[in-house]
């Protein structure tokens, strides 16, 4: 019997299937979950280090300030994202007009930009950092405001996508029904659609918040360019600035605080929004009608679009103005770091797909059962935990603090696996849930073994989503700074390379470094653009077949 036929036969055996799933779960827990939260145990094992820091009020003030900055910035950014993202999500789902595809594409652009690059671009656009020769708006903004403006850019697409996804699932007839009963569109949305929205809102808020909490590279570069990297901290930049994976009490304390707070908020958000009841008994028919027609909705949409262009798109693309002053680039160093970035991202994504598909299949096909719900929650954890803290925890777990060479690269890969795995799993889960289970079932009754039903029927149908998820994960890994730096300062992925260039530029007061950093950024963006573009083409071709 050939190997393929042997595997097919094996898949018939329920015991074998269970064992395979068990293995995947074990790998997931041991390689991803446990290392991510390991640092929390250090509070108990290295209590003296920890208590030393906790007792030092000066250190605690700095740490507390950093944590406060991270969380308050994330909070503000998320709230604003909801308000300006909702109209755009609405337009994307409910309206059809020429140029909708363009809007759709534009929306994903910020995801293609590695955040380190965005840090550079945003400060250039809004402020006038010393030594940067390209003029920007020249506003003198505080670090706090600048970081908020930066964080809008890469959290916004997550919010809009989550809201769109849920909106697509809500039956539009509910609103129509409400309107046939005499409700203005505003009233219909307020009383019927929004309450049904909760799940999407939770997802959007969680993703936005987590993304903002995690961001390291861009924030760090922005602060460096403004000269505030030693005075103003967010959680991740504190870790990045003060020693990477050196096991100090400060590192443990701040990581643990960030992890615990993030997990707590995940639960809190679900609880609050789940039980939040907008009192909808009061109705104002005339006001509702006025606000639903004519100028008001157009103004709302106009403002949302203006926000999108002015705050999100322009600052992101601003870095391309550096092309007017091309600087020379150390090509061998750049190529080297591109190589490392691709290696890390590539291996991480392959692992994600191979070990993500079984888990995603289980969650999707056993929707509603206890084990599936638990797994679903577990998968979210690496997504919520700030990647810098995650990297630190992982390095501690494997005992590789301050490692170099191949060990460091392996650890960085493991770190990247941790935060890309949930992205891939969620993507595949979503795709599988869309497929009628009758497809595989019918295939089996026609004589296909379970593995055959998967390879011949299910996988071809979800392939576009799998590839899209893989590319998104790849891009995410390419753009990550915090985890890499937290695990080992010796692994020079492209974002790390850019950060180092900016650091040198600031330290040496040499603007040519900034120009170099900008050119490398542009190269990195170009690569990511090409990949994102490929995603769109694959997805659309896939849609045509479905």
């Amino acid at each position, binding site marked *: 019997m050939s190997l393929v036929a042997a595997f097919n036969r094996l898949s*018939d055996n329920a015991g074998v299937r269970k064992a395979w799933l068990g293995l995947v779960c074990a790998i997931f827990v041991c390689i991803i979950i446990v290392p991510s939260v390991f640092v929390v145990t250090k509070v108990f094992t290295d209590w003296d280090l920890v208590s030393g820091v906790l007792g030092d009020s000066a250190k605690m003030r700095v740490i507390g300030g950093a944590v406060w900055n991270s969380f308050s910035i994330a909070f503000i950014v998320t709230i604003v994202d909801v308000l300006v993202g909702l109209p755009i999500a609405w337009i994307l789902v409910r309206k059809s007009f020429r140029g909708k595809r363009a809007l759709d594409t534009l929306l994903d652009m910020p995801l293609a930009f590695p955040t380190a690059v965005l840090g550079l671009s945003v400060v250039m656009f809004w402020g006038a950092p010393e030594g940067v020769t390209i003029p920007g708006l020249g506003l003198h903004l505080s670090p706090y405001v600048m970081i908020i403006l930066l964080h809008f850019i890469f959290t916004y697409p997550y919010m809009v996508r989550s809201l769109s996804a849920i909106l697509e699932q809500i039956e539009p007839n509910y609103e129509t029904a409400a309107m046939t009963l005499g409700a203005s569109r505003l009233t219909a949305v307020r009383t019927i659609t929004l309450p049904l929205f909760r799940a999407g809102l939770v997802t959007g808020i969680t993703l936005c918040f987590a993304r903002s909490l995690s961001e390291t590279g861009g924030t760090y570069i922005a602060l460096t360019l403004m000269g505030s990297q030693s005075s103003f901290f967010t959680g991740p930049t504190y870790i990045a600035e003060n020693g990477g994976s050196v096991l100090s009490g400060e590192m443990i304390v701040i990581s643990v605080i960030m992890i615990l707070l993030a997990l707590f908020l995940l639960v809190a958000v679900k609880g609050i929004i789940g039980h939040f009841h907008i009192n909808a008994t009061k109705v104002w028919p005339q006001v509702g009608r006025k606000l639903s027609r004519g100028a008001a909705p157009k103004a709302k949409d106009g403002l949302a679009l203006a926000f999108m262009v002015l705050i999100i798109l322009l600052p992101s693309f601003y870095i391309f103005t550096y092309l007017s002053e091309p600087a020379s680039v150390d090509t061998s160093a750049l190529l080297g770091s591109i190589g490392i970035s691709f290696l890390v991202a590539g291996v991480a994504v392959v692992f994600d797909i191979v070990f993500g598909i079984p888990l995603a299949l289980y969650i999707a096909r056993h929707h509603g059962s206890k084990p599936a719900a638990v797994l679903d929650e577990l998968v979210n954890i690496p997504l919520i935990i700030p990647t810098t803290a995650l990297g630190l925890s992982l390095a501690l777990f494997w005992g590789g603090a301050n490692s170099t060479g191949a060990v460091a690269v392996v650890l960085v890969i493991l770190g990247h696996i941790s935060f890309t795995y949930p992205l891939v799993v969620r993507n595949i889960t979503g795709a599988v849930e869309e497929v009628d289970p009758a497809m595989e079932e019918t295939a*089996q*009754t*026609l*004589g*296909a073994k379970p593995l055959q039903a998967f390879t*011949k*029927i299910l996988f071809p149908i979800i392939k576009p989503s799998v590839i899209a998820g893989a590319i998104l994960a790849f891009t995410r890994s390419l753009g990550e700074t915090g985890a890499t730096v937290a695990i080992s300062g010796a692994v020079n992925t492209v974002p790390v390379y850019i950060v180092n260039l900016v650091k040198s530029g600031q330290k040496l007061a040499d603007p040519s470094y900034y120009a170099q950093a900008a050119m490398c950024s542009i190269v990195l963006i170009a690569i990511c653009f090409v990949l994102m573009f490929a995603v769109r083409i694959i997805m659309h071709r896939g849609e045509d*077949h*479905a």
Partner: protein
Amino acid sequence: MPEIVLENLVKEYSGGIRASDELSLTIHDGEYLCLLGPTGAGKTTALRMICGLTAPDSGRVLFDGQDLAGIPISERRATMLSQSYALFPNMDVYHNVVFSPVIKRWSEEDTKQLARSMIDMVHMGKKVKNYPRELSGGQQQRTALARAMASDSKVLLLDEPLRALDARLRIELRKELKSMVKEMGLTSVHVTHDQDEAMEVADRIAIIRHGRIIQVGTPKEIFQNPATPFVANFLGRSNIFAGKFVGNDAGHSVIELRDGIRVKARPADLEPGQEAVVAVKVGSTVPELVGGVKDVQDSHLPDTLPDGYFTGNVERVLYEGSTITIETNVKGLGIVSAQRSSRRFEYYKPGSRVIVTWQPAKASVFPMPESGLAQEMRLD
């Protein structure tokens, strides 16, 4: 082609819902059996247990006496045609149809031959290169059928195969469906909620409700001899009356409904005074105009009928095409329906006084169901 035996199947879901409640049924070799019942009766669960997609909590499924427990789905040779057709969107019609032979590694020549004959049988020859999304509902259904029949299965399971189609199309396709399947000689189980459909296609019908089989028989048997009041009104509309059993007389029984209204029905094995239910098909209920000329009866009724049992006023006459339904309001009993040939349409006017009668042999009597009449008669 196997005889299928379902033996005391039980399947319970969380929340205590019993989709199958000691379900037992025998399906004969080569038979086309319809599993008929309201939505939620457990019909789909029963089908899924036959082909192995769902495992019963207890009970057995046997093909020709062999217990199927432990036999994987792919080896049972019982193929399922689902409500949504589940045509593989990544393959055209031809490749959908040959899916099974290809998976089973038949020779290319045999595969081609089988595919060609199946595709011709369902008249899809012109569409072999089309993809499922390019086909109409009826075409999709026929493709799914060809795929099922090309699978060399012994058993064909059809889960509401016509549900997604327009009413008129359903009527056309069900005739084709039956003849095509019978030609192949498979043992077939066809699930539906539509009693007209079941009557037209089935060799035998099994009425299922709340996870159990209530009655099995040919359409004629079930129609003329329903086992419970529910069946009496589910397969063919019936007038249902509650009353007390009085006793048996020469060849018929007498039941008192209320206020001295007594009706005749088939002889029954009940105690005098026992609560009873009388069911008469609307086609056997005859309203005769009071004081009118003795009417020429519809051809399915005998020339003389017993004297009427009660009177009422015609409230409404519904024109249904070849038939009409006369709704008579009878004091204390509510609306009594009667169905006749539409040739009599002009005969009945709203407001006319009629006296209602029927042949005793056409009326069934049952003991009052334990759960009460309202619960018994629920259609959903």
